[in-house]
């Protein structure tokens, strides 16, 4: 058997890096087109006419064109049905103007995208994924016994679960918000999906997922359970959810699934080649920082710490940012929004210290 001198996984990694470089260029071109969302919303509140329906030509990522004057602040949802196959996009089963259909997964996806769109717009003044009213496309009933939901770079995709461990993935609003938020990250910070930047990418999706649920329920940070993916497990599983932001590592403890492996502190940071460098494991660390800070501040999390996280993600953040760089970005954003020495800034600084990302003695 011939063994390649360069192991296959390394070749794959190298080529991936190259492809990512190309992708980044395209995304950078797209990002440069995105207007400042808070400013746009501000103008709308002031009654200033905002040219809208700026759509990006799919064939030419760098090109924008004006196609009309319809508002970009309304969601444009299209739900498709993959009918158990692993082929996208599937058959369109519900469009924006359609009423509910006789399929709970379709309606959950539709409503969940609407709720996430509402959070982004009402809390952060952001019109959809790209800030320019990008249509929200989703596919349900993907694959057979498919235990996952994902963002493929253009749409959100939901499996029905295997029925033994997982039920359908649209059943959790936080998971729908999580997937849509991957789109927001793609159009903003563009955090590389690997290692610490990948874990930050994951964590921001959990943050938005949690905030969508809290926003829809009108929950304060103190009332919220800070669980991601609650209700996805079947009754056979010993677990509450996929993850706990406030107490990473406590979401499930099951004889088949094992125990929730998330760390909640840098001391437990997991070095691994799996899962793109443990992006779904180490996200527990920034997740906990967010939840701790939000609870310390109290009130609606999207108005305080949530707004700061959003500012950090849409500000000047390197796509390879590590936890420390992101922590710094949140403190800069918090000082800018709430003032240095504010309750929010203090809570955020304390939270990063608690999870071991920031120490007390910093030379800044």
């Amino acid at each position: 058997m011939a063994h390649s001198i360069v192991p296959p996984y390394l070749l794959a990694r190298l080529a991936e890096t190259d492809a990512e470089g190309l992708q980044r260029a395209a995304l950078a071109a797209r990002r440069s087109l995105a207007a400042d969302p808070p400013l746009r919303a501000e103008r709308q509140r002031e009654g200033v006419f905002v040219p809208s329906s700026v759509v990006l030509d799919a064939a030419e990522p760098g090109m924008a064109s004006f196609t009309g004057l319809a508002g970009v602040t309304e969601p444009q949802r299209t739900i498709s049905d993959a009918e158990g196959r692993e082929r996208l996009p599937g058959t369109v089963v519900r469009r924006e103007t359609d009423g509910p259909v006789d399929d709970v997964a379709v309606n959950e996806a539709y409503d969940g995208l609407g709720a996430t769109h509402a959070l982004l717009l009402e809390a952060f003044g952001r019109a959809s994924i790209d800030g320019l009213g990008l249509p929200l496309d989703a596919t349900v009933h993907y694959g057979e016994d498919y235990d996952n939901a994902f963002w493929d770079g253009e749409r959100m995709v939901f499996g029905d679960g295997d029925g033994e461990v997982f039920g359908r993935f649209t059943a959790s609003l936080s998971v729908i918000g999580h997937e849509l938020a991957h789109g927001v990250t793609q159009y903003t910070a563009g955090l590389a999906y690997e290692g610490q930047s990948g874990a930050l990418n994951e964590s921001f999706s959990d943050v938005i997922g949690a905030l969508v649920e809290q926003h829809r329920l009108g929950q304060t940070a103190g009332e919220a359970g800070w669980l991601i993916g609650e209700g996805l497990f079947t009754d056979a599983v010993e677990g509450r959810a996929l993850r706990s932001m406030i107490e990473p590592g406590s979401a499930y403890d099951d004889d088949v699934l094992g125990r929730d492996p998330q760390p909640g502190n840098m001391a437990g940071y997991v070095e691994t080649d799996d899962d793109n460098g443990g992006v779904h494991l180490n996200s527990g660390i920034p997740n906990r920082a967010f939840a701790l800070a939000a609870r310390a501040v109290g009130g609606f999390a999207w108005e305080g710490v949530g707004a700061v996280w959003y500012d950090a993600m849409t500000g000047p953040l390197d796509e390879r940012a590590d936890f420390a760089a992101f922590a710094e970005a949140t403190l800069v954003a918090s000082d800018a929004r709430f003032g240095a020495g504010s309750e929010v800034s203090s809570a955020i600084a304390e939270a990063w210290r608690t999870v071991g990302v920031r120490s007390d003695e910093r030379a800044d």
Partner: protein
Amino acid sequence: MSEQTDDETGTGADAGDGADAGDTAAGDAEAGARALRITVARSGGVAGMSPSWTVTAEGESDVDGWLDLVESCPWDAGDPGDPDGADRFVYTIRVLVQAPKVAGERDARVPERDLTGPWRDLVDRVKAEAAPRPRRAKR
């Protein structure tokens, strides 16, 4: 000895290379000389869980049946797939073989998007034939 590979690769990897090696036929006759183990581990996905599936095979027909499938996979292709998106599965596939002409270990990391053709066939068959772990009765 005219062969000079024993110092580094004397693990059986070259047992079949020298057709005139005296112990080949004898080794072939032993059931233990043909064995295979395949482990498929999946990571990633929004749930962040890492299930794995393992099959073992012994005996000529059984091992060769798996080897045909293993050999049809593009182990050295290094195809990266499209890195777009998030929460996709990543598969790690590891094969340990001990057989007269094929021996050693190979592994590959295959993103879900590239899990097509023989990769998909191999993973599906391993998943189907791996013994499921029994779930204890809930308290």
